[in-house]
């Protein structure tokens, strides 16, 4: 790795806290981003000579803040001054910045920055795009590539999302405990959206990178809130799912089902980290949906071969999840475990009542077809698979179902 690559890694890592702090100073997202950008440019000039400073975050915040203030002063000569309240209290200008940046303030800065992206009026895709742009610092080009849209369209999408967030007003007061917990939950959901955007994107490298980014954000959140079992659960869940990324697609880019995956391709490092986090979370005895989902993923990770999978345990965990978070999709997932424990007939019975609510859901018809196939009800299986193909969201999903159909034709 060159020094420059290392400097970039340091800046990427410092970004959430630096932009979060600058946002608190300037109370304006564009200004905070510009100030951070300016600080990075200056860092690129000075750091290569002496290496990054001991506290890169504090350096970037201080330099960014001064650069931002310079900008305000410069503009003020040409245009009317922004209202005084646009800038937060600046009496700390002379104080040592590093001393003032205690952990809890950092923590709320980053949480605010992440929380901003979770505005309820923003559709999921905009939340994701905004988080990737503002918090992760991905370029519009990179984000556009991940979403398979043009750069112009993505630029507009992000601009619109920013405008909406700006109009809504940002929460700058220090949050109380309840509010902080609510923000944390919203942020966790948003991070999982980022992950799923990458996870459902097939082999596409630009998309798959989103999984790594979501894990990075989750680790960051966990550093700030080290005793939150649901954040441990979320992180573990993503680590365990991501651990299988090399095994999930075959040479032709087709989906390989969990049971058919080459488990030697699973990433042991990610699994170890995921399992360790689940152990930590369990100690808190405050179960939640992410913890339960990660526990399910862990039962797969712990099985050396598909035959050793604890399907009864998975069934029980899905029942717990159904109670916490009733949803037809959860029941559908449980049906797979029920199919293993009690047979395809029992699984079909379980999913039959879901037909109305999941009539537009690819996986419902894929699973239904597979159960019917196991029972030898070929015609019904065929029509379920046909329906699944029509609902597939990407070529890999469609190709996967087509293999079932081929099997039906051969038999």
């Amino acid at each position, binding site marked *: 790795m060159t020094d420059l690559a290392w400097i970039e*890694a340091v800046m990427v890592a410092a970004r959430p806290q630096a932009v979060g702090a600058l946002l608190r100073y300037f109370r304006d997202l564009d200004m905070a981003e510009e100030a951070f950008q300016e600080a990075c440019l200056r860092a690129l000039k000075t750091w290569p000579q002496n290496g990054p400073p001991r506290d890169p975050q504090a350096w970037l915040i201080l330099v960014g803040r001064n650069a931002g203030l310079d900008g305000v002063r410069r503009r003020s000569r040409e245009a009317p001054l922004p209202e005084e309240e646009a800038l937060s209290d600046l009496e700390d200008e002379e104080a040592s910045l590093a001393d003032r940046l205690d952990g809890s303030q950092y923590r709320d800065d980053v949480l605010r920055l992440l929380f901003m992206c979770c505005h309820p009026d923003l559709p999921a895709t905009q939340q994701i795009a905004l988080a990737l742009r503002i918090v992760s610092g991905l370029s519009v080009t990179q984000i556009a590539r991940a979403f398979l849209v043009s750069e112009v369209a993505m630029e507009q999408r992000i601009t619109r999302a920013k405008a909406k967030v700006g109009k809504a007003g940002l929460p700058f007061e220090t949050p109380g405990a309840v509010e902080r917990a609510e923000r944390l939950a919203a942020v966790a959901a948003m991070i999982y959206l980022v992950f799923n955007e990458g996870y459902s994107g097939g082999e596409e490298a630009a998309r798959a990178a989103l999984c790594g980014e979501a894990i990075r954000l989750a680790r960051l959140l966990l550093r700030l809130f080290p*005793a939150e079992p649901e954040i441990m659960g979320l992180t573990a869940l993503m680590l365990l799912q991501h651990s299988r990324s090399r095994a999930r697609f075959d040479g032709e880019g087709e989906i390989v089902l969990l049971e058919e995956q080459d488990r030697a391709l699973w990433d042991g*490092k990610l699994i170890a980290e995921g399992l360790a986090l689940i152990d930590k979370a369990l100690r808190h005895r405050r179960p939640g949906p992410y913890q339960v989902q990660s526990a399910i993923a862990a039962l797969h990770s712990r099985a050396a071969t598909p035959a050793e999978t604890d399907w009864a345990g998975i069934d029980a965990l899905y029942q717990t999840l159904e109670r916490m978070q009733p949803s037809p999709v959860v029941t559908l997932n449980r049906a797979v475990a029920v199919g293993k424990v009690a047979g395809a007939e029992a699984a079909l019975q379980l999913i039959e009542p879901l037909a109305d609510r999941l009539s537009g859901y690819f996986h419902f018809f894929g699973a239904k077809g597979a159960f019917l196939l196991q029972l030898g009800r070929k015609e019904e299986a065929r029509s379920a698979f046909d329906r699944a193909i029509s609902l597939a969201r990407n070529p890999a999903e469609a190709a996967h179902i087509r293999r079932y159909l081929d099997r039906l034709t051969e038999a």
Partner: protein
Amino acid sequence: MLYAILCYNDEDAVWSWSKEEDAAVMAKLGAVQERLVKAGKMGPSLRLLPTTAATTLRKDQDPPLVIDGPFAETKEQLLGFYVIDVKDLEEALEIARDLGAVNPGGSYEIRPIALFNPDRRDKAS
């Protein structure tokens, strides 16, 4: 003389490397280690998972308190260590410089070892 080389670095930065960047650094470190192995100077070495996976037992109270996360919040975290068998500090420093040349950022703490117990899992009864 046995020395430990304790590796400290900003884990946020290290864990934000891409897989390729990480693999490239590990390969270069591997080459340095290979030389030490051939010279008979290389003891055990290990790399730790992020501090978010850590748990701390504070034993300054009774009963000891279990806390999530690392022992201390620091700018640079302990990410791993090497054990090397060298003749003196100069040689240990030389090795640390070689490792440092291919692993950017952070610090190495070079610290003599007082007691060394090798892996004894095979002694189970």
